[in-house]
């Protein structure tokens, strides 16, 4: 049965904050995010017959939002722009792990520099690191780590195989940790010994 207008509005308003959050992280711009949300909701209403199960509303509308973002970006890419939509060539500079930088196995159990590092990070540090990710990694990191979608839901949302989600997520998290490390260094948050010896 096709969803009613009232049920559609209720479901949209219930997750509007999260839709807006994803849109802001994808577009990195409040005005563009609001437009993206509005356009996605319009497309979702037009495609409401494709919603087989109202329990799957969240994954369904995130899929429409992701597709709308990607198709809008393709249009703008017709004009010269700074960032390619998808580049699987591997723009990482090798594996990077904050844990490996900071962990000191012979410290007493109560000393835990890697957890201290996380505790000192501000919300804005995390937001900045996500915003710095290349677009194709940012999408999967936001959907998986911020919004908690499964690999299968993300694969469906982006219309890519699960293996692609897995590899983009691995590279995206790698890049995220590298950026967080830099942000922390800029704020003087890194542990002096680890930063001095390996960073």
């Amino acid at each position: 049965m096709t969803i009613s207008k009232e049920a559609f509005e209720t479901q949209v308003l219930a997750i509007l904050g999260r839709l807006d959050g994803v849109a802001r992280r994808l577009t990195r711009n409040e005005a563009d995010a609001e437009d993206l949300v509005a356009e996605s909701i319009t497309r979702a209403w037009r495609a409401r017959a494709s919603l087989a199960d109202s329990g799957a509303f969240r994954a369904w509308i995130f899929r429409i939002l992701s597709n709308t973002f990607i198709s809008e970006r393709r249009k703008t890419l017709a004009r010269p722009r700074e960032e390619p939509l998808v580049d699987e060539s591997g723009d990482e500079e090798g594996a990077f792990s904050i844990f490996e930088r900071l962990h000191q196995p012979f410290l007493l159990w109560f000393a835990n520099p890697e957890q201290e590092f996380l505790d000192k990070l501000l919300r804005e540090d995390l937001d900045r690191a996500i915003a710095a990710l290349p677009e194709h990694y940012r999408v999967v990191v936001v959907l998986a780590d911020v919004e908690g979608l499964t690999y299968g839901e993300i694969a469906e949302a982006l219309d890519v195989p699960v293996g692609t989600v897995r590899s983009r997520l691995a590279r995206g998290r790698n890049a995220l940790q590298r950026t967080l490390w830099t942000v922390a260094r800029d704020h003087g948050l890194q542990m002096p010994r680890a930063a001095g010896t390996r960073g």
Partner: protein
Amino acid sequence: MSETDDVGCEEALKRLVEFVDHELPGSEHDSVEQHLRICRNCCSRMEFERRLKERLSALSTEDAPSTTRDRVRDLIKKF
């Protein structure tokens, strides 16, 4: 599972992110979990990855700005 069945650090670390994401099939999940019980270093690494994921998850916002909420309500009225 005996210690000889232990997957070892290299295999456990390869699967750690999927373990934290609850994306491993049952038997693989159990193998990694078993290794984490006997390896302090891998367990600490898993704990770090899990807490980082929790910090990212906490960024998810429940409320949209009132301007967006009003715009969406007006939009849906016109459908």
